[in-house]
């Protein structure tokens, strides 16, 4: 009876083309099949086993056994580590060593634990194809022994850093922080008000100023208005002769230079002032009537002259020339 070891040793001696009968099937392979054919075993060791996060652990995987040369262990084909290691370790390849006499392949890895929850190196599985087994069990698995680990947090070291300026280590006081600041936005109505209000107030100021402190022109105008009022009152009372009252009125109101004027002088003066022709003629007629009363031998009183004088003054005041 030929034992399986002798059979596999014979297979290993066969040339490459003769191994085809021992090829693993192309379908139905386990996902973590390491493309190894024969009978193999696995041993694992790690050092150190007490590390900090991100510190390297040297993991040595020793695979020993026999099988055809084309399907001997090779790093690029090995699928030893479970997928969950992605969350636990950074894995880097290190050196390989092969001892063909002892039929031992040694693969070294550098593992760096990612966090402190990593408690062991476990789950290393070598899946190979053993043609000597019955058809159902030809894909065989061997597991590496679990290696307990102690992973500690990275110690904080005093790091020499270039310090920022001392001003960065300053805080504001609670009062400074609590003070409420706002950004100001000038609303359009405020701008319009600010533009329009000062000139408006100045205009009002001018009006008020003018009212309480009239200028020379205004004073003259007021005086002249008062002259007309006074003359009408005098004519109404009848104390002074009508011609004297009217002549005084013309002097005060229009700067008529002569008190005892002839009718022609009055008419000429009014004409030069720009009065309408009927008004000038009325002036001339009034003073002619006055003269006829003044120089007659009888009483010089004529109550109709007062009314005529008042009519003349009203006509003069109504004329646009007097208003200007």
């Amino acid at each position, binding site marked *: 009876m030929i034992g399986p070891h002798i059979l596999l040793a014979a297979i290993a001696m066969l040339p490459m083309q003769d191994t085809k009968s021992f090829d693993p099937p192309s379908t139905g392979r386990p996902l973590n099949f390491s493309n190894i054919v024969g009978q193999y075993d696995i041993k694992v060791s790690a050092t150190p086993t007490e590390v900090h996060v991100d510190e390297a652990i040297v993991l040595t995987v020793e695979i020993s056994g026999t099988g055809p040369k084309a399907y001997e262990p090779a790093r690029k084909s090995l699928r030893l580590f479970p997928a969950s290691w992605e969350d636990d370790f950074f894995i880097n390849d290190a050196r390989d060593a092969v001892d063909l006499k002892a039929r031992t392949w040694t693969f070294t890895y550098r593992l760096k634990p990612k966090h402190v929850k990593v408690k062991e190196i476990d789950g290393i599985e070598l899946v190979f194809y053993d043609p000597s087994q019955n058809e159902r069990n030809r894909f065989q698995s061997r597991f590496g022994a679990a290696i307990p680990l102690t992973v500690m947090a990275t110690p904080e070291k*005093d790091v020499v850093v270039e310090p920022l300026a001392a001003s960065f280590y300053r*805080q504001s006081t609670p009062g*400074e*922080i609590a003070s409420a600041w706002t950004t100001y936005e000038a609303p359009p109505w405020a701008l319009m008000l600010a533009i329009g209000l000062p000139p408006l107030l100045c205009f009002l100021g001018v009006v008020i100023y003018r009212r309480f402190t009239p200028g020379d022109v205004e004073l003259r105008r007021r005086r002249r208005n008062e002259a007309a009022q006074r003359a009408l009152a005098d004519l109404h009372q009848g104390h002074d002769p009508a011609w004297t009252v009217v002549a005084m009125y013309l002097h005060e109101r229009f700067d008529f230079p002569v008190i005892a004027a002839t009718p022609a002088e009055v008419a000429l003066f009014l004409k030069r002032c720009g009065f309408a022709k009927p008004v000038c003629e009325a002036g001339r007629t009034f003073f002619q009537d006055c003269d006829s009363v003044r120089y007659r031998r009888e009483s010089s009183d004529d109550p109709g002259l007062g009314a005529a004088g008042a009519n003349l003054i009203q006509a003069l005041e109504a004329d646009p020339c007097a208003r200007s």
Partner: protein
Amino acid sequence: MRSVVMAVSLMGPLVAAQENARSDAAILADAQAAFDRGVEKKTLLLESRRNFAAAADHYLELHRRGARSPGLYLSLGNALALADRWPEALWAYHMGLQLDPNDKMLREQLATVRTKVIFPASGQGRPEPDSWPAWLPRPRLHELFWISLFLYSATCVLGTTAWLTDSPRLKLVALAAFVLAGLAIFGLWHAIIEQKTQRDAPLVVVAENTPLYRGNGTSYAVQTSLPALPRGMEVRQIHRRGDWLQVRLTTGEVGWIPARAALVVAIEQ
């Protein structure tokens, strides 16, 4: 299972309510204590950064609650800079300067932190140099408004008085007031234009290195002249579409960045 879900759904608002129930003074005290712890442990880089980051988060909570003061933004900026979150620190200093443009400390801190930005060698996006003379105070908008109003009113009053009294001396004074009022109104107009620019195209600090796309989506190509914006670069937002901002660099390049990578400097009262 149902009761667990209910308990969790009830706990969420409860925790938020507890956080809201904390007074501003308590949050401020926490912020200052964390900052002080960071200063004590400044030789331990990671530990101090953790404390400064905690202080910054407390200050940010105060900002979210509506606190607005240059003092708050100075402390916040310092804490962020010390926590190595300096793009956010740039944002905080800018926020403080929006409130008080005359705060020299904020301006100095801003200048220091700006040196950390790694600009492209071609110089694109570098901040424009500040042309305002250092000795001249920067008047705020409301100050300019009142100064302008005063000088304008004085000009009106003096001009009217000079006209009424026909006094040559008063006319000269009125002319001087007119010139000063003109300058103040020009300054006010400039400040209003600047405020409008800031409102329409607010300053944006790039929070993280981000590609500068030609359109508002990752399917668009990146700009060939400047494929990516470095963190801390200051740009202007000229448009917003959804979660994307169209930005313009100080050197004129225009592109799109995701809004999550941008810190917009805008004082919202």
